[in-house]
């Protein structure tokens, strides 16, 4: 090497460093400390496990940092665990990491070394990072770091990621380890296990499958070895090989399923006797005191309900003004943009009613998502969420869910989107799937305007405020009543879940770190806008087009003519007034508005959506819907709250009506079935119809953003499955409601 220019990257450029550790070890804090804002959240290919990657610059060289999902063991049971193995073995696009940063809580070493010693078999250069070191110092525990270093064979660095203490030493150690790597001393397996591993490796070699030691261990020890499915070999051959090897182990009185745990724990036992002699005296006294209160048989649930109530109050009261602000901003932008495209009505309508409306309908969800996620992050980071799950588990276990479903489901009462996103905290994939599937049945706040409109128009005037309140409550319960048996059916029949064990550690309570919460909110928010945004946005454009086209100019002229003729015949205006109006229509804004509404309404009637409404109406005839209600229902599939403004347009009141609008209520009440229909002359809206519409909206998946988020969190099949299933349930529910209503009311 003669002349290396300063700009040329040195030899050790751009390495990949993976952070491995159990949950609650402060991994994310450490990751945030190392990467700061240079991080992003995505999904691992094919699974719904979050992939946190970021960049960190050490001495001028930028390295990739991967924060692996927190997991207790490498036995690949959950998607998280599978991702950890696959990432560590380089099965995703990136290579095997160059350095493994193993994070442990020094006071939980016994349990957490288990994962580290499993990972040792991979032979990846490693560093052990002992986070929460301040706790060791505070308890004045005698922790023999040098023994741990000697026994494990890798550098062991104490840090406190929360305060930042020890991070410099950690960074120095990372750089040193990248230059002169060392690997963790492996377990010395007993001869029978050693032989069994070799048997499996040789058996694999015979069919040209190359196994490393870590894979062989997983195949020998795991009940459902995920790695086996990744390798290309004959199933019966594999089955026999593993079965024979395990039988031989069994004959030597070694249980293959327990052997690994027994061996690793024996090793940890001897190790800890030297490293942390007074281990048992170290349980957290503060956590114990707090748990006396938070898991108290009476006080616990009361505190929990109070807390959840507080959270939702805040979500409602804080998000409301911001949502109004976003809505106001949307209208403001629309007003500014509208005149700019006055020359081309198609572009104008597409930009104003399609694009800006679409963007607005995505952004409007952000405040609720961020506020709810703020609380969820705080509850999780403090360690309270595990207590809540413990308290609530019994109420969910009967239908195959577990205590962790509570927060996602109750969140869905505000909005299913943050609710579904919150379901990520559920480890068991089947429970998570079921929770997400039933979440949209919870009556979200976007359904409220529909209830308010219809109850206000048809139930309150007849039965009074008390029954109006009962109806509103009923609408919020009907989804829950459907969701419970659906969850039960999905778990017991479709997924054949045998009731997954609900094992959960209650971590020590701790103070959350504000930057961690902030970074998580930014990442989640950005992700929602990027991924759900694109889908809901395109659906909105499609619905706009269906409501806009075709648009023959002749129709407007025809409607104007009819309007003037009617004005003339009505005789409410003098001839002079009429002439003045025809001369200068703009000076009669009210007349102009009603003419415009009439034209809009006529356009909708003959638009693709209008025709579709008439075509589909027979499907809803049993529920008592006419074609106008059907158009309202169809066009609110991207976002249910759209129904109010669509109804406004259809009933020629303009799009700017809201749920409290007296005009809309009056017009709806006066609608009659037209000549030539079976119910000619009868009113369209009666109480059974109003109830049927509300039940339809309560049960239907009319939310593009929810479908989008479901497809991201699960997959397209479940997302569309949910869409069609809920639409079907809603349809049946509406028919049942109408028919029963006609019998009894």
């Amino acid at each position: 090497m003669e002349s290396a220019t300063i700009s040329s990257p040195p030899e050790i450029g751009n390495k990949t460093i993976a952070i491995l550790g159990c949950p609650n070890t402060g991994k994310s804090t450490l990751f945030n400390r190392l990467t700061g804002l240079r991080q992003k959240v995505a999904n691992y290919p094919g699974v719904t496990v979050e992939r946190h990657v970021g960049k960190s610059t050490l001495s001028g060289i930028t390295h990739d940092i991967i924060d692996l999902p927190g997991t207790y063991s490498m036995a690949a049971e959950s998607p998280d665990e599978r991702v950890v193995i696959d990432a560590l073995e380089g099965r995703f696009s990136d290579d095997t990491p160059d350095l493994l940063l193993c994070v442990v809580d020094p006071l939980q070493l016994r349990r957490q070394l288990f994962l580290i010693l499993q990972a040792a078999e991979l032979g990846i250069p490693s560093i052990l990072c002992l986070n929460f070191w301040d706790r060791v110092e505070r308890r004045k525990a005698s922790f023999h770091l040098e023994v741990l270093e000697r026994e494990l064979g890798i550098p062991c660095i104490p840090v406190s990621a929360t305060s930042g203490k020890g991070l410099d030493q950690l960074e120095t150690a990372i750089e040193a380890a990248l230059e002169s790597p060392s690997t963790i001393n492996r377990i010395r397996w007993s001869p029978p296990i050693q032989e069994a591993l070799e048997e499996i490796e040789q058996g694999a070699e015979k069919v040209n499958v190359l196994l490393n030691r870590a894979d062989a261990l997983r195949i020998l020890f795991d009940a459902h070895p995920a790695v086996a499915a990744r390798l290309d070999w004959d199933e019966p051959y594999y089955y026999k090989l593993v079965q024979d090897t395990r039988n031989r182990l069994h004959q030597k009185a070694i249980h293959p399923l327990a052997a690994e745990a027994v061996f690793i724990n024996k090793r940890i036992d001897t190790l800890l006797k030297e490293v942390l002699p007074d281990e048992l005296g170290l349980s957290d006294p503060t956590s114990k005191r707090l748990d006396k209160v938070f898991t108290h048989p009476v006080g616990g649930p009361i505190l929990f309900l109070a807390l959840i109530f507080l959270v939702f109050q805040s979500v409602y009261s804080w998000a409301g003004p911001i949502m109004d602000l976003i809505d106001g901003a949307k209208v403001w932008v629309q007003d500014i943009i509208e005149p700019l495209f006055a020359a081309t009505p198609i572009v104008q309508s597409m930009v104003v009613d399609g694009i800006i409306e679409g963007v607005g309908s995505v952004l409007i969800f952000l405040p609720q998502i961020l506020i709810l996620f703020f609380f969820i992050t705080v509850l999780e980071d403090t360690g309270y969420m595990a207590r809540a799950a413990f308290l609530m588990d019994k109420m969910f276990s009967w239908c195959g869910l577990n205590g962790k479903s509570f927060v996602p489901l109750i969140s869905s009462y505000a909005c299913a989107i943050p609710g579904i996103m919150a379901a990520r905290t559920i480890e068991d994939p089947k429970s998570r799937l079921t929770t997400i599937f039933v979440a949209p049945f919870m009556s979200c706040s976007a359904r409220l305007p529909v209830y308010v409109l219809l109850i206000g128009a048809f139930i309150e005037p007849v039965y009074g405020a008390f029954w109006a309140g009962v109806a509103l409550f009923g609408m919020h319960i009907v989804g829950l009543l459907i969701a419970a048996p659906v969850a039960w059916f999905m778990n017991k029949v479709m997924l054949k879940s045998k009731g997954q064990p609900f094992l959960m550690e209650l971590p020590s309570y701790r103070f959350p770190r504000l930057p961690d919460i902030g970074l998580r909110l930014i990442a989640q928010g950005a992700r929602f806008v990027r991924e759900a945004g694109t889908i809901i946005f395109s659906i909105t454009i499609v619905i706009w087009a269906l409501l806009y086209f075709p648009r023959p100019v002749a129709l407007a002229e025809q409607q104007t003519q009819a309007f003037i003729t009617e004005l003339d015949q009505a005789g409410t205006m003098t001839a002079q007034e009429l002439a003045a109006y025809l001369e200068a229509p703009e000076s009669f804004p009210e007349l102009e508005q009603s003419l415009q509404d009439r034209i809009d309404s006529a356009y909708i009637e003959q638009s693709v959506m209008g025709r579709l409404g008439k075509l589909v109406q027979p499907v809803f005839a049993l529920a008592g819907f006419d074609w106008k209600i059907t158009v309202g229902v169809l066009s609110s599939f991207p976002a249910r709250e759209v129904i109010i403004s669509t109804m406004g347009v259809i009933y020629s009141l303009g799009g700017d009506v809201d749920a409290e609008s007296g005009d809309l209520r009056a017009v709806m009440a006066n609608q009659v079935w037209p000549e030539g229909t079976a119910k000619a002359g009868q009113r369209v809206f009666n109480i059974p119809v109003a109830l049927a519409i509300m039940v339809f909206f309560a049960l239907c998946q009319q939310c593009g953003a929810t479908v989008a988020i479901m497809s991201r969190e699960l997959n397209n099949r479940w997302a569309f499955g949910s869409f069609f299933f809920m639409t079907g349930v809603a349809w049946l529910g509406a028919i049942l409601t109408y028919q029963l209503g006609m019998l009894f009311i």
Partner: protein
Amino acid sequence: MADIPYHLFACQDTPALTLADLNANESAEIRGIDLETGLDQRLMALGFLPGQPVRYLKRSPFKDPILVEIGSRVVSIRKSEAQRIVVGRAE
């Protein structure tokens, strides 16, 4: 990939005392785990291993799940799982 059947593990003296049978705040030692599926590996990874001391802390207000202390950590476990952990009272 088909599941591979397992046999019982260190669970001879039935009817045995299980973790679910302990009284509040009672300590015991794990004698064995009735192994059925791979999910027991999670139990073992959590530290539920023969020879380990374990303490029943309390049950949830709705009677299930229960809180147990294993080593220096607190774990929530459903009764149905606790019933598969055979324990012996400390002498």
